[in-house]
């Protein structure tokens, strides 16, 4: 029936649109779900011609009326996540009404409606324990789940509760790979930081409708990610005017006030006199509703985040002041067209951000301004109930601006102007800064600046053609997409005067007794612009040759070029990413799934990779001198070692290998699931991910001794300068295996729960596909071994229980998480690098962190009032745990191969909240 539409007046504009989009540029990712309806009679015979009326609170445009085909089927596509009601009717048969049908993002809900003669059937749908048509390793976090679990109102923390997701770095989880290999999507827009590969923006937690967490086995429409995908869908509003305001206070200062600085091997350092501190207050508001019923909806959301966080031993707390705004307008003027406009921004000020160094004076701490904005416009053209064309244009920008706290009222200087009434500070603007140990005394007259902008332009389109019958009796759901992306990374950073003066005798630093210095002169500010252009397309099909078999297959093509600051193409190519997955329901009862398949995921590189060969280097000249008297370089220093001691040219000496290719990950999955009792399923998900040709920088000029740590010659007759080369050698690889074994109880009878055991094993020579994590110098033995993402055993469980105490609703939640730690590489002194580095030794075997676990509980009390309700909440995060120092709260001292804890190891955090909504 679909093909019948593609003729005459219809096919021309469709083709024109497709061609135009092919010529244009792309992020897709699903933001909706599907409902596959099968209508049968009491003898399980299909009933054609049944009128289906679907309505849902989150579905704009009003109820949809459709008719089942000759096989008694109909597939509703493009359904916003939420709860739906379906009414089936046909002359001679009693109506069937099914309510509370749950639609989740990225999922296909299957519903069998049974009708009988003269009998009206009214039932409540149950959420399926096993999604028999999905072939990906995925889990959807619903709004109910997000609101009830004690996750500190952080979507990054909430994601770590999904099965198979491991704690990562800086709020970025490991999802089948390294922490910076994931893709973050917001309403279909890629919001991943194009430089670091981490999440890049914040928004009101209450605005989230659902989060789809994918660890692997996903289809081409989800983009070029080689790790996992965090697909966030925000609310769009409803026909009801809704308002929500809340305040949450989170305090992590419950434990005794004196933290000690301890090391991983139990060594206790002297108390610092300064305890760590953690306090956060979140104030949010959200209003949504109709502008025109069924035609135009809006949502406006705001959250203020203020946190005071101090690392152990740092007297001056980091003051974080963020304002997160999100607004969305959805308009559906006709049944054929829908438009959505999304605006988002998260400006943030951070004072005293330098929490790593206790010696930096409070007034010398940097001030950072960061944030960004997103603007997106989406057009959906529904050509028929089965065919729709989604087009999207978006702009995303993030920025970081850092400058020293002492400001200036001098308007001739274009950086860090003082606010009205703000003290200028004790700055000697005419002279260059002096630095002691770790910048200890940069308050004297230090000044540096750093501006960083990252921009992503995206134009994309996706054509969905659902329910295409084939002559074998099966059905196909096709999707085709094209996308163009332009990435830009601008950065400028430097120091005033372009020179630093260092105290040679740093260990005994005393600003009153300056004697000897070395003087480091730079060539000027670093100023570069890295760009990338990408043209991507995909085609995929979800093919059901028979009712109990789903074949999800497709192909993704990524054409791209990344240019360095000289506009030289560093990396380019056209990559094919085939996917072939299948899911089988052997007993045709929608209670069992056997899924397996293969997928290739290509890495088109981050902008940071291209920057390796940029020539906006930080050229340096080193002078030795003795401080005599006076001010200024000319009178202060007398060179004692004949002018320049060493000279690093400004131009970058790094090159890219001629035959760079892209890293890629091949994944094989095997998923077994079975609903063993009603609403309870056992699952086993096995995955092998094999990363090859990962980016590695090597040093081309130096020749090393047997140990690989000292230089004994140079291939360029130049033993001072280092000539790096970006490569993708065959030896740069990573093998990652993960097995998740668990039990899942879907939400029913007021409670839900999951428990998952995860085994991982990660070995290889590189930690990450997107950056050179290990120097692979030629003429040294290649390093291979256990990688830091290898967290062998972990276990996590959570449960949510709504207490039956109507009319008030109470809910309890409980989480338990266990990790058995992960390895740390052994560092050795390297004469070549004048410090402690990884070179030829087997890696990852020196130290493995002790296991750690923690328990958190949450409590919600809903109190109905005349208009709306109040919700009181109390969370106790890390209520009890044995967490040992780890990389999340520590600094690794390479020279000693031990960890120094710089924040509290096991902070109990209590969070109190009050929300009001109507």
């Amino acid at each position, binding site marked *: 029936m679909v093909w019948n539409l593609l003729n005459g007046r219809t096919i021309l504009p469709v083709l024109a649109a497709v061609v135009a989009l092919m010529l244009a540029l792309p992020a897709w990712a699903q933001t909706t779900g599907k409902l596959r309806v099968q209508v049968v009679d009491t003898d399980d015979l299909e009933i054609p011609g049944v009128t289906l009326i679907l309505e849902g609170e989150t579905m704009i445009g009003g109820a949809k009326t459709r008719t089942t085909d000759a096989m008694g089927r109909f597939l509703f596509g493009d359904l916003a996540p939420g709860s739906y009601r379906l009414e089936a009717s046909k002359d001679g048969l009693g109506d069937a009404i099914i309510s509370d049908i749950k639609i989740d993002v990225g999922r296909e809900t299957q519903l069998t409606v049974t009708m009988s003669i003269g009998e009206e059937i009214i039932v409540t749908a149950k959420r399926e324990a096993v999604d028999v048509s999905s072939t990906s390793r995925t889990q959807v976090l619903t709004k109910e789940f997000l609101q009830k679990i004690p996750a500190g109102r952080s979507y990054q923390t909430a994601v770590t509760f999904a099965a198979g997701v491991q704690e990562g770095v800086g709020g970025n989880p490991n999802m089948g790979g390294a922490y910076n290999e994931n893709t973050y999507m917001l309403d279909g827009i890629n919001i991943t930081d194009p430089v670091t590969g981490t999440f890049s923006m914040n928004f009101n937690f209450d605005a989230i409708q659902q989060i789809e967490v994918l660890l692997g086995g996903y289809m081409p429409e989800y983009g070029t990610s080689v790790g996992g995908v965090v697909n966030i869908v925000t609310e769009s509003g409803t026909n009801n005017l809704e308002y929500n305001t809340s305040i949450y206070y989170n305090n992590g200062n419950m434990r005794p006030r004196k933290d000690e600085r301890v090391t991983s091997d139990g060594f206790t350092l002297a108390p610092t006199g300064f305890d760590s501190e953690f306090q956060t207050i979140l104030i949010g508001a959200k209003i949504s509703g109709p502008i025109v019923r069924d035609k135009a909806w809006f949502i406006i959301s705001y959250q203020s985040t203020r946190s005071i966080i101090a690392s152990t031993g740092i007297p001056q707390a980091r003051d974080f002041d963020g304002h997160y705004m999100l607004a969305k307008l959805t308009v559906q003027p006709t049944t054929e067209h829908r438009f959505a406009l999304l605006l988002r921004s998260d400006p943030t000020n951070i004072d005293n951000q330098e929490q790593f160094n206790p010696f930096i004076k409070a007034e010398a701490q940097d001030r950072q301004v960061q944030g960004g904005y997103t603007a997106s416009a989406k057009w959906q053209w529904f050509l028929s109930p089965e065919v729709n064309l989604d087009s999207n244009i978006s702009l995303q920008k993030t920025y970081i601006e850092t400058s020293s706290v002492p400001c200036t009222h001098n308007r001739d200087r274009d950086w860090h102007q003082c606010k009205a009434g703000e003290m200028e500070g004790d700055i000697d603007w005419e002279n260059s800064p002096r630095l002691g140990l770790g910048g200890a005394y940069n308050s004297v007259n230090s000044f540096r600046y750093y501006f960083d902008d990252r921009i992503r332009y995206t134009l994309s389109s996706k054509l969905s053609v659902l329910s295409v019958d084939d*002559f*074998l009796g099966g059905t196909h759901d096709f999707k085709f997409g094209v996308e163009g992306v332009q990435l830009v990374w601008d950065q400028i950073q430097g120091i005033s005067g372009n020179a630093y003066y260092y105290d040679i005798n740093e*260990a005994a630093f005393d600003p009153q007794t300056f004697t000897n210095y070395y003087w480091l002169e730079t060539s000027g500010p670093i100023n570069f612009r890295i760009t990338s252009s990408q043209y991507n397309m995909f085609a995929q099909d979800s093919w059901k040759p028979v009712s109990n078999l789903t074949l999800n*297959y497709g*192909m993704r093509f990524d054409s791209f070029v990344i240019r360095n600051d000289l506009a030289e193409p560093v990396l380019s190519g056209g990559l*094919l990413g*085939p996917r*072939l997955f299948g899911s089988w329901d052997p007993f045709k009862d929608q209670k069992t799934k056997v899924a397996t398949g*293969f997928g*290739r995921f290509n890495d088109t590189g981050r902008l940071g990779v291209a920057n390796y060969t940029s020539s906006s280097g930080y050229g340096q000249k080193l002078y030795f001198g003795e401080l005599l008297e006076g001010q200024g370089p000319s009178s202060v220093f007398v060179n004692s070692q004949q002018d320049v001691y060493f000279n690093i040219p400004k131009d970058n000496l790094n090159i890219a*290998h*001629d*035959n760079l*290719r892209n890293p*890629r990950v*091949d994944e094989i999955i095997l998923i077994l699931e079975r609903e063993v009792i009603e609403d309870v399923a056992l699952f086993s998900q096995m995955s092998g991910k094999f990363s*090859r*040709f990962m980016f590695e920088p090597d040093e081309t000029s130096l*020749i*090393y*001794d*047997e*140990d*690989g*740590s*000292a*230089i*004994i*010659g*140079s*291939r360029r*007759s130049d*033993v001072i300068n280092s000539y790096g080369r970006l*490569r*993708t*050698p*065959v030896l740069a690889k990573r093998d990652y295996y993960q097995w998740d074994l668990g039990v899942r109880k879907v939400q029913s009878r007021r409670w839900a729960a999951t428990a998952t055991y995860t085994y991982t094993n990660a070995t290889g020579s590189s930690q990450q596909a997107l950056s050179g994590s290990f120097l*692979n*110098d*030629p*003429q*040294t*033995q*290649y390093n291979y071994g256990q990688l830091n993402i290898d967290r062998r055993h972990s276990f996590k469980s959570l449960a949510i229980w709504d207490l039956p105490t109507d009319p008030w609703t109470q809910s309890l939640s409980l989480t338990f998480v266990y990790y058995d730690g992960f390895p740390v590489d*052994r560092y*050795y*002194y390297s*004469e070549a690098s004048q410090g402690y580095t990884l070179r*030829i*030794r087997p890696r990852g075997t020196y130290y493995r962190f002790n296991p750690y676990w923690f328990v958190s509980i949450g409590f919600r009390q809903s109190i109905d009032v005349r208009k709306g309700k109040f919700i009181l909440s109390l969370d106790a995060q890390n209520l009890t745990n044995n967490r040992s120092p780890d990389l999340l709260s520590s600094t690794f001292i390479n*020279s*000693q*191969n*031990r960890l120094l804890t710089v924040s509290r190891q096991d902070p109990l955090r209590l969070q109190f909240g009050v929300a009001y909504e109507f």
Partner: protein
Amino acid sequence: MREHTSIALLALAGACLSGCAYDEGLIIENLKGTIKIPIEAATRTIIDEEGNATELTDPRLIGPVYLGLYPSVAEANVLERYPHPELGPQYQTDVPGDAYPYGGISVGDIRFACLEFLTCKVVSGRYADWNSLVEWFQLIQQPILDNQGVEISDGEYLRQTCYDLLNVTSDAETRITAYEDRNGDGETNELDLDFVLDDAGEYYVGDFTLWQQEFFWDQDQENCTPGLDCKGFTLWGWMDAPSSLSFKYSTCEDGLGQNIEVYDADFIGGRPQADLLNFPSIYIDDGDWVVGNPYQWDNIDARPELILDFEVQ
């Protein structure tokens, strides 16, 4: 339909296999071979405090062996007195040309043995255990002194000093003594050092590996496969023998290297010179042994046997 399905599956399989045949374009191999050092190179006359002379033949006298891959090596001449890598052009007045090595490695490293007394005197792969190291310096009439000037007679003390100073927990991490059972006889001893006396008692024999060596070839030859039908680079090397008085190695710079600053010590640990392979003549002196017959590498799979048979006098 069946035909189309087959084509699609073949296309998918082809796409999946793409990349398996990826060739980076660099010929990089681990080049391996054997070094033979005549026992004369490990023989020295030691005079004790009473003036008695003793002739010692001991593998602990074998210094670091430096191997370089060069475009070519010249015969011995008056200037150099021994076969020597040919130098490139001299660009500046009074600045000698460079031998321009393509690559290289050492067999045995100059190791920082955790005491200032031992700076530039210890080479890896020469001592079976820590007591062997202590006994050796007693044998050559230079007992080891700690940083307070106290003589050390216990190898375990020296080991613990290294463990504390370097933050290590095993001999394998210090790589100063034998630390692995290389010959597979179930024991870790003097037979697991870099050089072992051959059955005839004429040579100390050891293996070398040039890790991940990029393969270069004669630039004048065209349309050939380097290492197969092109002449490759030339392997040449020498052994730095310890000085007769201080037993330090001339290839080591004792004013550079790891800076040790702890409560009872403040010194520099020493390091090998960074241009040993570029300017070998600066560091080769009397008593060192060099390769008399360099090996021209024309086959990647070759396993050459290199003999240090030329004593510099």
